[in-house]
């Protein structure tokens, strides 16, 4: 590294200058102030936090074993004493199963999206920034994966790897990588041609420095918002895999699996049947609104 000598500019010495520069409001301080004013985002964060706590500490919030069924109390309606959310088609406490099921569902919803975000985001920004041959290679690879419907791709992968939560997560990750590559490639390509990237190149910066300082902060917003919209899809897809016997297997509780098995009781008690769906809906909506709010708070231009 070349050591650049200090600029003999002004009476300010470096330490004092840094100190003075830091007196003005920092970035995260501003984000915090703005978040505090955004009631919707705060509410969504609170709901998600509550959900997370209840799911993790499920035994403290439930009275019954989620596996304990009885033919005698099948499909009790909402509000039954002792089973306030009713019971499912084999008489298990629905409230317990909802909380315990949340463990697997949240895992199957968040982990594939997060890992796809890492892999796809990396490949996409790389392809978008490098252009040319690298871009073609990555994008054609993504196109090949994109050609399969994501469900089919996930089924194929779990079919090869075998069933189970771990393989479901791997399969869903693979299914989500191509669309995330697409999104991040297109926003990066847009950002790459802006003058400030050119200016950064003119300071002799390498690819990694430019991506870190100039590309990521401009592309992360849209990518994150898109990724959070995938969380609900991920929960549903993992449910579909479970239904096909490729994901979580009964009698383990999982929202998607519960939705599928309660389907048969639709005419008996539609409210009970809808319950797991309501949980999926609440969760995904919270994630969507939360990411939207975060993006807005973090966007310095607004």
């Amino acid at each position, binding site marked *: 590294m070349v050591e*650049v000598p200090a600029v003999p500019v002004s009476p300010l010495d470096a*330490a004092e200058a840094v100190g003075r520069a830091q007196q003005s409001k920092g970035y995260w301080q501003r984000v915090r102030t703005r978040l505090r004013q955004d009631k919707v985002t705060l509410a969504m964060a609170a709901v998600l936090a509550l959900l997370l706590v209840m799911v993790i500490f499920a035994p403290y919030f439930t009275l019954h074993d989620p596996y304990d069924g009885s033919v005698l109390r099948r499909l009790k309606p909402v509000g039954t004493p002792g089973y306030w959310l009713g019971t499912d088609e084999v008489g298990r406490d629905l409230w317990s199963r909802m909380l315990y099921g949340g463990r697997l569902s949240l895992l199957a919803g968040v982990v594939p999206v997060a890992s796809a975000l890492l892999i796809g985001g990396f490949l996409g920004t790389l392809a978008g920034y490098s252009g040319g041959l690298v871009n073609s290679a990555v994008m054609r690879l993504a196109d090949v994966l994109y050609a399969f419907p994501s469900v089919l791709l996930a089924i194929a992968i779990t079919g090869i790897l075998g069933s189970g939560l771990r393989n479901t997560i791997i399969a869903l990750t693979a299914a989500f990588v191509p669309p995330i590559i697409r999104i991040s490639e297109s926003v990066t390509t847009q950002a790459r041609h802006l003058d400030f990237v050119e200016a950064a190149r*003119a300071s002799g910066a390498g690819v990694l420095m430019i991506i870190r300082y100039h590309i990521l902060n401009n592309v992360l917003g849209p990518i994150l918002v898109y990724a959070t919209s995938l969380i609900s899809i991920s929960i549903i897809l993992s449910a579909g895999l479970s239904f096909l016997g490729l994901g979580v297997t009964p009698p383990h509780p999982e929202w998607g699996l519960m939705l599928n098995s309660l389907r048969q009781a639709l005419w008996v008690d539609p409210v009970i049947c809808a319950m797991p769906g309501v949980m999926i809906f609440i969760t995904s909506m919270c994630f969507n609104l939360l990411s939207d709010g975060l993006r807005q708070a973090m966007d310095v*231009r607004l």
Partner: protein
Amino acid sequence: MSAATTSHPLLRVDRLTKHFPVRGGLPGRRQVVQAVDDVSFEVWAGETLGIVGESGCGKSTTARLLMHLVRPDSGTIAFDGKTLGSAMSRRDLHRQMQMVFQDSYSSLNPRLPAAVSIAFGPLVHGVAKPAALGRAADLLQAVGLDPVVFANRYPHELSGGQRQRINVARALALEPRLVILDEAVSALDKSIEAQVLNLLLDLKDRFDLTYVFISHDLNVVRFISDRVMVMYLGKVVELGPVNWIYRQPRHPYTRALLSAMPSMNPRRRTMAAPLFGDPPNPINPPSGCRFRTRCPYAEAICAALQPELAEMPGEDGRAIACHIHRPGSGHSRATQAGLAA
């Protein structure tokens, strides 16, 4: 002029050429835009070289070529005697030579505070973050912005003049010896433009800078430059000390360009007929002299032979690419003393 102070120029550009391929068009026929064609010039330490010309004449491409933001098709750039590519790496060049872009808004990352934008260059070259930010604060001070107020401001919170000051500070952060100013003040209001120009002059003295100042504004170029280079369709048509060019323009294009400049004196109205139309298409430039299609003095020789840039004796190194100013070129006016001033 400072030409005598050093034995070799700070920047020597030799036969620089860049042709951009055109997409589309007739299949099988590869067309190119001759953006910069066989351009050679020198910049001496401490001077300001102004580059003027109409839009599309290759001014900005020249700047980008100098910064190696686009690769030249042919030709060499030597900085301080060291040829880029062999004796000097791109990274080294960028430590010595920086650029200020025209659009002050799009050339700053909207999501980085001013201090970080300025500190980015030093960070790239291995300066620790606190030191780099400290230098950014110093530079903010140097361009007339209080670090306390402006260090954490984002581009959208700044006025055009303030943003351009930050762009200047960023260009200075690596302590370059040469700064290319590509239409750096063109987008500013006249009053702000004057402030920034004065700032540029101050900084030049303070940091011993050399400027390449690109603009379409002839008054600004005259104000700031020591020497002026006039470009037309990717070629240098006239090059020389600012007083020679402005007081006695010789190339027909330079004359036309300067006569199009409105005078402050109502008695000195523009009398000469202006040029008509647009410059020809750089995809298919005219044969011979590129200016001949709009030149009032064009003759057969102008279509046949491309005039080379030739130095005028006794005019402080002024050079002109025109057959009229070359005795024995075959042009009917060449035997006379050229175009009388």
